[in-house]
């Protein structure tokens, strides 16, 4: 009995001590690791593929989840350090230099992993559009029958304002069996309307439809909100111009414009009659009422 009690005590002390030491080492390591700019990838894609032989799909999943966590961790670190919400449309604030190699390893291990290419196509262009293009071209080489990758590659070229190239990519993708009809239409619109807002809106809608990823959907939603804000601004600025031409000065308050904004695309807050942006924050009249801007608390990207 006495012996058992001593053993149980030793067991508790042993585990307790090990857990305490493990936490202490972790905390120490955490502090020193934060001094390093970023963790390194020790294994290249082809090397990882050889090392994992029959288990390359599982290894690809591991690298995929690591890629997602890498971005997630960077967002959390940014929010902790800058005490504010991170805007997914400003990824350049995050130092995501490992994302491209991580996605490259993922897609080398599993070249048919389409969501990894899609994720790279949406996130990478803001950081390094060349890396995004090379990832997508690799994906197209491995999956020549996947029209969705052409859609994403076209989107990257469109973002780079290389409208002719974007149009060619959409046209090539449209020829693939099973490609939806809007791919060919998009190719034509890229050539004709180039950087027009309606083209942007359609691209973002298609991107959102084709992805299951929450981050991608959130990012696209922000892009769409920005397009809505730009459209709203055009309507309100036209209304201000009209007011100015009638009265010879800019409106002093929203109440001066409300009547002219009714029946337009602008949403009006019924409680105070102010127009609101896509994040339902009121717009601000600036420059003596001659222009408008977003509220400082608005979540619409500028």
């Amino acid at each position, binding site marked *: 009995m006495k012996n058992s009690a001593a053993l149980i005590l030793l067991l508790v002390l042993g585990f307790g001590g090990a857990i305490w030491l493990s936490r202490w080492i972790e905390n120490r390591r955490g502090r020193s690791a934060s001094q390093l700019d970023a963790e390194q990838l020790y294994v290249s894609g082809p090397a990882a593929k*050889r090392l994992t*032989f*029959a*288990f*390359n*799909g*599982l290894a*690809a*999943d591991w690298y*995929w*989840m690591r890629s*997602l*966590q890498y971005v997630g961790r960077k967002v959390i670190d940014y929010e902790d350090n800058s005490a504010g919400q991170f805007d997914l449309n400003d990824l350049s604030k995050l130092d995501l230099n490992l994302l491209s190699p991580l996605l490259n390893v993922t897609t080398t291990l*599993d070249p*048919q*992993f389409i*969501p990894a290419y899609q*994720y790279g196509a949406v996130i990478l262009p803001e950081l390094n559009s060349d890396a995004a293009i090379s990832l997508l071209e690799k994906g197209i080489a491995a999956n020549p029958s996947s029209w969705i990758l052409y859609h994403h590659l076209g989107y990257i070229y469109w973002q780079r304002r290389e409208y002719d190239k974007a149009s060619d990519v959409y046209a090539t993708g449209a020829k693939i069996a099973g490609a939806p009809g809007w791919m060919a239409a998009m190719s034509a619109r890229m050539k004709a309307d180039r950087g027009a807002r309606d083209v942007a809106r359609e691209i973002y809608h298609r991107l959102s439809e084709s992805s*299951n*990823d*929450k*981050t991608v959907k959130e990012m696209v939603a922000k892009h769409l909100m920005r397009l809505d804000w730009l459209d709203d601004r055009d309507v309100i600025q036209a209304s201000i111009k009209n007011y100015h031409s009638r009265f010879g000065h800019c409106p002093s308050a929203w109440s001066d414009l409300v009547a002219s904004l009714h029946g337009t695309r602008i949403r009006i807050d019924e409680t105070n009659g102010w127009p609101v942006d896509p994040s339902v924050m009121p717009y601000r009249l600036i420059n003596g009422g001659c222009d408008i801007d977003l509220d400082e608390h608005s979540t619409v990207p500028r």
Partner: protein
Amino acid sequence: MLTRTAAIAGNTFREAVRDRVLYNLVLFALLIIAGAIFLGELSAGQEAKIIVDLGLSAMLLFGVFIAIFIGVALVYKEIERRTLYAILAKPIGRGQFLLGKYLGLSLTLVVNVIIMGLGVSIALLYIRRGWDPLVARVWPAILLIYAELLIVTAVALLFSSFSSPALSSLLTFFVFVIGHFSADLKSLGASSASMPTRWLFSALYYLLPNLTNYSLITPAAHGVTPDARSLAASLAYAVFYVAALLASASLIFRRRNFK
């Protein structure tokens, strides 16, 4: 003759069950359940692919461990316990004894693989909240994993017919690893300028099992199934290869002196 072989196979299966070999299914079940519950959060909508990768990889890994560690001990345990003498004193040939042992372990593996396959299918049904074509499409890959395990078991049995369990485990593991690099063996041979080196690599390429034929876990996770011809060819390859290995093991085992 068949009844005697079946009796040895049945005993080998019962022994494996008594040795709690099938307890690995508990670990597998925990892995799949945890995967099905937690992967949704981590994988950004890719939980079905990851469940298939995880489930089939675990099936192969657990199966290979069983094939190696149980396979190498099949003959050795009988010699160690001296039960082999009692068996061979009966009208049972040494080849028959080996075949019975092999079939017994193959039966253990088939039970293991079927239960694990059902586990993966149930996890997929849970994730998709109903029927998904992927549930059916993983089964050809499961069949090929089983064929690969049959080859690994035969390799283990061959080594155990003349070597110690430790060495047999090591050699079988090497064959399993090299079997997944057989394409490299061929390309190494082709890129060599020296004729003997070419022959050596060609010989190794054809003598060692080409296990890349059975690596269809990654395509299965994308719902891609092999065409009927390549599936049949891979299964036929396994039958021929296993037959050759069992014949070699019998030839060696017949010449062994147990006095």
